[in-house]
Structures are given as structure tokens and as C-alpha cells.
């Protein structure tokens, strides 16, 4: 029951966060210079044409009225109409969001599937050439700019070897290069944390005991060490989700991937208020929910962590 209470509280928290983000976004967008109608009509358009566009999207209403309308609409999940495309914002987002979720999931999968074993292996072979190599790789992975890595991969795999498509989402193999590119900046901290916590756990008495009582090396590593080392890794994972979204913007641009990151950037440059607000609302919601899921995962990994305090 405690868990249900925990989720109830946390869901209210999610709602508060998402609404606060929405209001903040609303204010922020309108406090930066730029006029969506003017940008759409072009700087040579006569004022009356600009006024007509403003009127059409309610941009002439006083700001508090616009904010209240926006919040009212939020409760009915009506995200408004895009100034740029004249389509409902929710439709535009649902076109693009799946691509970003797919790309992020693929990148996260690669990051975990490679990052965790890599870190663990380096820890087990501490101070060996392999360890140095992995540590160096982690530094490179952290420092390497995403767009550069993306272009290098395109040059190698698309232009030289002609193995994979360089951009777009029309082909099942299109996901490979962007997913690898996006995974690297996430993989590096995961590998780093895994290596570090593995080293910590390896020093623990219960590991020595497990080894002493003659358990097989495999059993010790997977059952005793791995399980205990995973909590910090999951924490890092949760933190990296923000990085993933950030990276998605660049990756989507480099690989012409039609995701929501590009949509947000394009919309910001057009000052398409409804679209930016809608996209940020959806992203904030997803981010909050994933964080909630990550928090809950702790309990699954480490039974000493209980949700919602003592019973």
C-alpha cells in the first residue's frame, strides 16, 4: 500500500512539475524578442497582413488572457494550433515523437548494452592495458562533439563503404548511425560509473566472503557485484535522459531524422509559440514519468531501498 501512496504523491509531483514548466515556458517564450506572425509573413509584408495572422492565432490578446486560455486548454489536452503549419500541435507532435522515442530507446539500449559490460570489464582488469584503453575511450566519448562523430560515421559508413544510409528515416537500417552517435555521450558516463562502483563493490567484505567460500567467479560477479553496483548506474541513467534529449536535437539534424528535437528547434526559430509550448509540455511529461520509473527501479534492484518510507 505504501507503494500506491508513493505513486499517488509522485504523480501529483509530476503534474506540478509539468504545469510549472509549461507556465515558465510560456513566459520565457514571450520575453524573448521575435514575432511569430512577422517571421511567417516576412519582413517585407505590410502590417495589415501581419495583423491578420496575429488575429488568427489569438496573439493580439493580452498576455494573461493568452496564458489562461493556454492553461485551460492544457487540461483538456488541447495544445492549440501551430502558427507555422496551421495544424493542431498535438498532431504534429504525434507525427514526430515516435521517431525520437525510437531513436532514444535504441541509443539507450546501445549505451547500456555496451557501457555496463565495458565498465565492469575494465574494473575487473583494473590497471591493465584494457582498463587504460577503456578509461581513455570514456574520456574521448565524453569529449567528442556529437555532430562531429555523426559526420565521421556518415563519411565512413555511407560515403566510403556505402553500407548504411547517411540520413532520413525511410530505411530500417537508417536508425543505426544516429543511434550509435546519440549513444556515445550517454555510454561514456555509464561505463565510467559502472567501472567506479564495480571497483568499490569489489572491495566489500561480502565479495571477499563469496570468493572465500568458493563460489564460482561468474556467480560472484553477476550475483553479488553486479547487483550491488547497479544502483549508482541507474541514477546516472536517469540523469543521462536529459542528455539524451539534448543530443537528440543535434543528432536529428545531422542525420535528417524527423524527430521532435528538430521540430522544437525549428519552431523556436519561427517563434511558433503553441508548437514550442506543446512540445516542451510533452517532453517534460515524458521526462518526469521516466524519472519516476527510474526512481522506482531502485527498489527492484536494491530491496533495502523502499518506496515511500518505512511501513
Amino acid at each position, binding site marked *: 500500500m505504501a507503494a500506491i501512496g508513493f505513486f499517488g504523491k509522485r504523480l501529483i509531483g509530476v503534474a506540478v512539475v509539468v504545469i510549472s514548466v509549461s507556465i515558465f515556458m510560456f513566459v520565457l517564450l514571450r520575453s524573448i524578442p521575435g514575432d511569430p506572425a512577422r517571421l511567417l509573413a516576412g*519582413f517585407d509584408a505590410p502590417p495589415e497582413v501581419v495583423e491578420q495572422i496575429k488575429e488568427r492565432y489569438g496573439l493580439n490578446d493580452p498576455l494573461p488572457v493568452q496564458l489562461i486560455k493556454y492553461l485551460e486548454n492544457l487540461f483538456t489536452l488541447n495544445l492549440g494550433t501551430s502558427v507555422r503549419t496551421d495544424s493542431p500541435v498535438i498532431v504534429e507532435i504525434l507525427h514526430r515523437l515516435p521517431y525520437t522515442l525510437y531513436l532514444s530507446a535504441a541509443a539507450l539500449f546501445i549505451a547500456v548494452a555496451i557501457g555496463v559490460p565495458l565498465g565492469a570489464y575494465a574494473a575487473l582488469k583494473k590497471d591493465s592495458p584494457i582498463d587504460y584503453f577503456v578509461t581513455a575511450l570514456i574520456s574521448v566519448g565524453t569529449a567528442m562533439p556529437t555532430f562531429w562523430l555523426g*559526420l565521421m560515421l556518415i563519411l565512413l559508413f555511407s560515403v566510403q563503404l556505402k553500407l548504411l544510409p547517411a540520413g532520413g528515416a525511410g530505411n530500417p537500417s537508417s536508425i543505426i548511425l544516429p543511434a550509435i552517435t546519440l549513444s556515445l555521450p550517454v555510454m561514456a558516463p555509464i561505463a565510467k560509473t559502472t567501472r567506479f562502483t564495480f571497483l568499490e563493490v569489489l572491495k566489500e567484505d561480502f565479495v571477499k566472503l563469496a570468493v572465500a567460500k568458493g563460489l564460482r567467479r561468474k556467480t560472484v560477479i553477476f550475483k553479488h557485484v553486479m547487483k550491488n553496483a547497479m544502483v549508482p548506474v541507474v541514477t546516472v541513467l536517469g540523469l543521462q535522459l536529459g542528455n539524451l534529449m539534448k543530443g537528440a536535437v543535434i543528432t536529428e539534424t545531422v542525420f535528417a531524422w524527423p524527430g521532435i528535437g528538430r521540430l522544437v528547434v525549428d519552431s523556436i526559430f519561427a517563434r511558433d509559440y503553441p508548437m514550442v509550448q506543446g512540445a516542451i509540455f510533452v517532453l517534460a511529461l515524458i521526462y518526469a514519468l521516466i524519472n519516476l520509473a527510474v526512481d522506482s527501479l531502485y527498489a527492484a534492484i536494491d530491496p533495502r531501498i523502499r518506496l515511500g518510507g518505512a511501513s
Partner: protein
Amino acid sequence: MKTSKRKSTYNQTGFRSLSTTSVLALVVLVAIVIAAALLFAKESPVTQTTSTQQTTIQTTSTTKPPSSTTSQKTTSMQQTTTQQATSGKTLRVGIGVDADTLDPAGQTTTTISNIIRLIAEPLFITSPNGTIVPVLADSYNVSSNGTVYTIKLKKGIKFQDGEPLNSEAVKFTLERILDPNVKVPSRGNFLLIDHVEAVDEYTVNIYLKKPFAPFLGVLTSAYIIAPNATKQLGDKIANNPAGIGTGPYMFKEWVKGDHITLVANPNYWNGTPYFSQMIFKVVPDASTREAMLLSGDLDLIIQPPPSDLASLSSRGDVKVSWTISTREMYIGINTQYGPLNDTRVRQALNYAIDKDSLIKYVLFGLGSPEDSILPPFVLGHIAVGPYQYDPQKAKQLLAQAGYPNGFSVTLITPNGRYLFDTQVAETIAQYLRDIGIQVNVRTYDWPTYVSTILAPLNKTELQLFLLGWSPSVPDPYFYTFQLFHSSQFTPNGFNNFFYNNTEADKLLELGATTTDPQLRAQIYQNLTKIVWNDAPMIFLYYQGFVVAYRSTLSNVVLFPYEMVDFASIRMG
């Protein structure tokens, strides 16, 4: 109690049982993943049509030249579906921006207008050499007072949905453009229309509120659409403009952010289209566009990275083609700001810039020094420049104006809007420093920049600003009236030079109403001399418009107004 009990079970068995909490956690995660998967699955049928095709390219391209395999594959595929007279080939084009809307009346970029023009045609178009030639129109006549345009239509043309092209369709199109309930960002050009009259089946009279000489040019941006198809589509025209035009290609699909596909119109009135399919891939990054061209994923790309043009040109499998475009790049001068108020100072600024070096070293050659206030192929162009690079003369002029030690000034520039905009601004600042002017360069993002340059005189902070001017209609009126007429001070028009010259005003008014082309040309030539001498701007260069394409393509014709004649291209 329950929790602790469960905990002890866990510890005793050492077996990882799932607690209520973790089940809930998993449910949330799984729900998100499933939702994503479902949404994605919904998308995939749309993308699949192209995916099969692209796979064939990918798998075969390792052994054979990619473009030839594509054409063979698509030949067999297409001949069953469309009629036999097309080549069966597919043209894949890389573009930098996606469409906002596919409504022909809602266009804001030349790139997407270039695609729309394949679906729906205007009455006239501007040919590559700058003359206006009829497309759907057969002939036209302007009344002696310049307010009534009588247009005769070509007979026997049908829209893609089977409706006949007639005077009612033209009337419908123009009235829709004027309808305040339809979003038309370029409506400003059409506001002078008083009313439209369908005289008979193939004759339209367009009545203007007052004579407006560039009106024929304005009509080149009005894509004539089928009344019934448009009414039936309603709002859907923005995403699915099916059957609405008379053009050689018909809309097939638009996967937002990814691609727009057109297929040949088998009943096209002006001969069977060559390509059976055209795919426009949205690839925002220029380097990626280039990579996709080199890897064989694309046949033609708009605006490859200028820095790579030399290496692209040297390859055997790729060709580069460029033309001087109608985009004039200049540094606008607020002629009412302090020292900039003096014509000699403004001329000094013009003499201070080495345009040739700027083009050669900063733009990788992609430009041509401005020699007039109108680009070369626009009516009335006369070469009066360029201002030759002469820093000594510039210093002399400054001294004569009373600024032997220069003065300090702010130059603002957008970032990423024009080819190397920031770099160009920095280079110019350096040239101005060479003649003793202290220049402070400030960079803005585009939306902020637009707000800044549109401020009225009493609020403006403008001193020097970098801008590219490329009106949607390449008529001299649109290059001059809004920029130089004293009634057009921002925000009414776009005279943010706050340039005020009575003589220029008179010529600008005359140019707007004189319909005789020869007289008009003379008017604009006279205007050019005045404005050039007054120098309300630092005249820089006409920006280049470049495409790169696989050498299997031929007959790639560029329009100076940053468009490609896709219909004329041949492959193999």
C-alpha cells in the same frame, strides 16, 4: 508489515522477486515503450513505400553505380502503376527545409515554392533570363489606365482531379488568396486587387484599385488551383494537396520532417513528365546533404557546403552548378544616424570594402560584386558600380566630412541566416577599422534580428546592419519601393535606412504605375544612379545559388530566384 515480510523472503531466498512497487515501475516503463511502439507502427506504413526502394539502392550500390541501379529498379516497379511514356526514373532531391504547409497559397520559402510549382502552375512564370512568360495564360492585355488586366487562358487544360482550367478557377484562386480566413503570408502583394471577373470560359478580368505595373510579376506567385478539389479538401489541403493543380507532378505523400513525394501526372497538358517520381528529402545539415549525394542516396542537392565546392567539382561522379541569384547582400546604413547622415561618409564606407577578396576568401567565390541596386537579370538593371576598393579615397572622404579620425559604430548581423553572414560581417568590420572607424559587431538570432531591424525611426538602434534582400517577385518595384520610398519607413515598409530623397520618391512612384517596359526600365535606371550615389547601404554582392548533382543528370537549369527547373532535368 507486508513490505518487511516481503523483504525477508527476498533475503532468505536470494531470489529476485518482483515487489508491487517494481511491478508498478515496470508497468510505467512498458506503457511508455508500448505507446512509442504503437505510434511508430502507425507511422511505418507511410514510410514503407520508400523504404523498399531505398533498400534496393543500398544493397546493390556496392557493386554497381547507385544511380543506374535505382533507375532500373524503379523502371520495373513504376511501369505497372503509371503510364509507360515516363522514363520510369525517380529523382531524389535533398532540400534544407521542410514545408510548413503544402497549401499553394501558404508558401514562405523558395525551396518549397519550387516543389509546389510542379503540382500547381501559375498563369505566368519568370524565365531564367528574367522575362515573364505565359504558362496557363495564353495572352494578356492591360487597359490603357493600367487597372484592368485581361487574361486569356490556354484551352483544354485539366486539373489533376479532372476539373477544367477555366476563368472560374482563376477567380476562385485569387479570391481565396484575398480571403482573410485563409492563411496567406504573401497576401500583401495581392491587396491591390479590387475584384476579379470571369468574362467567359477562358477570359478573366482582374480589376486593380490603382495602376500597379509589377502586377504580372505578382501573378507568378499565384498557383491556380481547382475549385472543387480545394473545397472538398478544406483544411486538409495543407497536408494533402491531392488533385488541386494542373502541374506535371501530383502530390503523393508527405512524411513531415522526412520527405515529400510527387508522382508524374499522366494527363499533363504539356507533354508527359520525364520522371515518374520525385522525392524531396528534408536534410537540414548541408554536410549530410553532401554525404547523401556522394553515397548515392540523393541525385541532386540544393546548397551544398560552399567550402566543399572545389572538391566536389573535381570529382567525376558529381557536378556543381551555380548562378548569381536575385538575392542582394548589403550592409544597410541608418542614414539618419550621426555621422552616417553624411553622403560622403556612406560613400567612404563603400570604398573601404574589397568586395572581390570578400567573395573569394569568405564566400568561396559564391557571389558577384553588386554593380547596381537591381540584380543583373531584373528589368531596368544598369551597371553603375561597383565602388572600387580604395581605402585612400575612403579616408579622404571621411576627412572631408569632418571625421579624419573616424568614429565608432555598431554593425549587427544575423547568425546562420545567409551564407557566412557572421564571417562576412566580421570581415567588413575589419575593412572599416582599416580606414579608422571603430566597429563593434553584434550577432543576433534571426527572430530577434527581425524585430530589431523593423523598429521605427524614433526607437531604432540601427546603425549598420547586414541583410539579404530577395523579393518573392523579381520585379524592380519589389527591389526598390519598400526600401527607398520615404513613405516606407519601418514599420510601414522596409525603408530602415530612413532614406529620404524627393527625386527618388518621384521615380519610385512612377515606376510603380508605368506599364510600358521600356519606359519603366529607364525610370529604374535613373533611380539606380540616384540611390547608388546616395549610398544608403554598403553594396556588397549578389549571392550565389548552388546545386550539386550526380553526373548522371543532365539539363539542370537554375532560375536566379533560387529555384531549379526540376521538370527539365534528364537522367542517364
